[in-house]
């Protein structure tokens, strides 16, 4: 989609094949996914993924497109979701088709954002971040005070099947919900993409890069930010509506800092500089969460470490790293990279596995119930009191590190070559 980003700047009479292609492919993929992954748990994960994608894309309207770092974006999703779940409990719900419900969530997310945005978008940067944090915490804390709306500690639950049947579909099964969610995902992603192509969307980028300059082009930076903020609130509310339909319950957890923080993590991991970055982030993060949380108790330690490492070494995120390979591919020199990647990344992976092995054994030794010394790791069962697991993991870590480090210059060199057009070498 990024290559599209660039060609898009050229004048094209209408919607060209090149711009439409990624969307058509995505739509076909969304339709076909349930036929490939048929199990119930897979569909549950895909629903979760789709909701996270909408939420992360909405978050990136602020962070990536508008340069606003929010620590409280969950409240717009949460409030949108709470409204939807309340509607499910009203009599009028019987005359509303369920697929329209997320729209209502979006509208309420937008209303809340238009109120908060009034004072929070005055400045970007640190001030905006702190205000978003304060407002987020305030609304999260309100959930135990305004019980009528937030339902206190139990939250509010509803039943989606009471809605008006939509062409005979009553949304009893997960798969029906999947297609509803996928449809909204496609619509919202397309709308958000188109938003970034409008004058106000372009100016959001300009204000992000240089608010003062934008002012001298006739645009009020504050008003540009406000518009992005309200639009982001709308799409967060849609994500909230989808959440309400999918889980049929909303609690304080949907509003708090943990949720706001994890969407920052998802978006940044995917890459804030590219439109589809958050999509990558949401998919990878959901898979990672599902797989790791099954395998280890301390998965959030790994996620935290991964996040910090991303910020430090790959600030453009996964999508940014993917994008970096466009030049070598265009130059037809990507083959140069294959061997160096293998000799560097394989030892690096061995090193990481060794380290995580050490961490797991240590964790087991410290926190397992007394007398329980047996543990299984990487399909091998052993006692953490024995010495050999420690030695093996330590050796893996040390050897992997040494090899990766030794081969890293080779990769750097290959990288440089692969990015230099022929004839430009001097």
């Amino acid at each position, binding site marked *: 989609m990024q290559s599209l980003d660039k060609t898009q700047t050229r004048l094209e009479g209408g919607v060209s094949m090149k711009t439409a292609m990624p969307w058509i492919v995505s739509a076909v993929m969304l339709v076909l996914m349930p036929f490939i992954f048929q199990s119930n748990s897979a569909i549950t994960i895909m629903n979760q993924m789709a909701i996270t994608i909408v939420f992360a894309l909405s978050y990136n309207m602020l962070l990536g497109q508008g340069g606003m770092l929010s620590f409280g974006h969950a409240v717009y999703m949460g409030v949108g979701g709470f409204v939807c779940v309340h509607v499910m409990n009203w009599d009028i719900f019987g005359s509303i088709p369920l697929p329209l419900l997320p729209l209502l969530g979006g509208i309420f997310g937008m209303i809340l954002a238009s109120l908060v945005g009034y004072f929070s978008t005055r400045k970007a940067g640190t001030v905006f971040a702190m205000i978003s944090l304060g407002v987020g915490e305030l609304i999260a*804390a309100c959930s135990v*005070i305004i019980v*009528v709306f937030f339902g206190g500690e139990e939250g509010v639950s509803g039943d989606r099947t009471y809605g008006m049947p939509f062409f005979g579909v009553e949304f009893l099964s997960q798969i029906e919900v999947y297609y509803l969610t996928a449809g909204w995902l496609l619509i919202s992603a397309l709308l958000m993409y188109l938003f970034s192509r409008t004058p106000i969307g372009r100016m959001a980028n300009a204000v992000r890069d240089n608010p003062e300059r934008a002012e001298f082009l006739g645009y009020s930076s504050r008003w540009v930010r406000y518009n992005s903020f309200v639009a982001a609130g709308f799409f967060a509310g849609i994500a909230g509506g989808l959440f309400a339909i999918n889980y049929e319950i909303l609690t304080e957890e949907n509003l708090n*800092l943990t949720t706001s*923080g994890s969407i920052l993590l998802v978006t940044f991991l995917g890459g804030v500089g590219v439109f589809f970055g958050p999509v990558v982030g949401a998919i990878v993060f959901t898979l990672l969460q599902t797989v790791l949380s099954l395998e280890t108790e301390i998965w959030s330690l790994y996620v*935290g470490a991964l996040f910090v490492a991303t*910020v430090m070494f790959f600030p453009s995120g996964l999508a940014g790293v993917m994008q970096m390979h466009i030049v070598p591919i265009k130059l037809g020199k990507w083959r140069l990279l294959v061997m160096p990647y293998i000799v560097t990344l394989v030892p690096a992976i061995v090193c990481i596995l060794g380290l995580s092995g050490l961490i797991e054994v240590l964790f087991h030794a410290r926190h397992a119930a007394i007398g329980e010394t047996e543990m299984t790791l990487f399909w091998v069962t052993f006692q953490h009191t024995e010495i050999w697991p420690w030695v093996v993991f330590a050796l893996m870590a040390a050897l992997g590190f040494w090899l990766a480090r030794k081969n890293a210059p080779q990769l750097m060199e290959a990288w440089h070559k692969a990015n230099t057009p022929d004839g430009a070498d001097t």
Partner: protein
Amino acid sequence: MDLILVNLIDGLVTGLLLFMLSAGLTLIFSMMGVLNFAHASFYMLGAYFAYQISTYLGFWMGLLIAPPLVGIVGAAVERYGLRRVHQYGHVPELIFTFGLALLIEELVKFIWGNDQIPYQIPEILEGAAFSISSYDIPAYKVFMIFLSLGIFAGLLFVMTRTRVGMIIQAALSYPRTVEALGHNVPLVFMGVFGVGTALAGVAGVIAGPVLSTFPGMAFVLGSIVFVTIVIGGLGSLGGALVAALIIGWLTTFAKAYNIRMEDILTSLGFTKPEPVWDSAWADLWTLTSPQIADILPYLLMILILVFRPYGLFGKRDV
């Protein structure tokens, strides 16, 4: 009257604690332009380090050793983490410190487990220091007040009376010039970051036993600390002090006096719907001040930002 005095002391303890955290945060912010989201995590580390040391050497050695340890960790974070991220700009820096806060919490859980740990006040400070009519003032609170005041006095002395303090103050406003004069500004930055986090560490050591020491303690206090410096005005030390005290007293008094919305509404001439539970306004009628004590700082922040966008004492265009 006596109750007011007791609450004034309680609020003062909270306020000074908040100030100890926000002072370090403000110092770091005005020097490096980065708001350290992980600041409260260093406060948590202070408590955990002190607990670990106290199990071997007792509370007092913990108080002595833990803050410098936290400061060393902080300086290392600045040297090997923040300095690297600095080139990408302030927003990635803030994201980095946020990630750091998550990571520190996970590390603490990894090492000390998910549950609260039995970190307690030393025996000598158990019991009451004195009483105001029938209210006992715990000795530990008095100790907290004097320790914080002592640290602030020391800090004030270093900043205004010593050469190091002069260099730091100059580096705050004119980093380039100070560098040109031959001072190692990156070293000064690292030092300030270390001292700022060590201050947070002290706060953790002394607050851990009373506010309980558990992995979530950083996030519980963290947001309030940020609210404090936003209210005071980013980068203003005086503002941070005023805001910390206001928040300390506001929450303490709101908790101590049970002001009920029901009374206010009735005195305004509204009639209470019966039964109140069926009314749409039930939450409003049953609202009490202890209930909303914890969200008062946030409300205050929003009010102040609407009317004074730069906080109470902030001038700086951030």
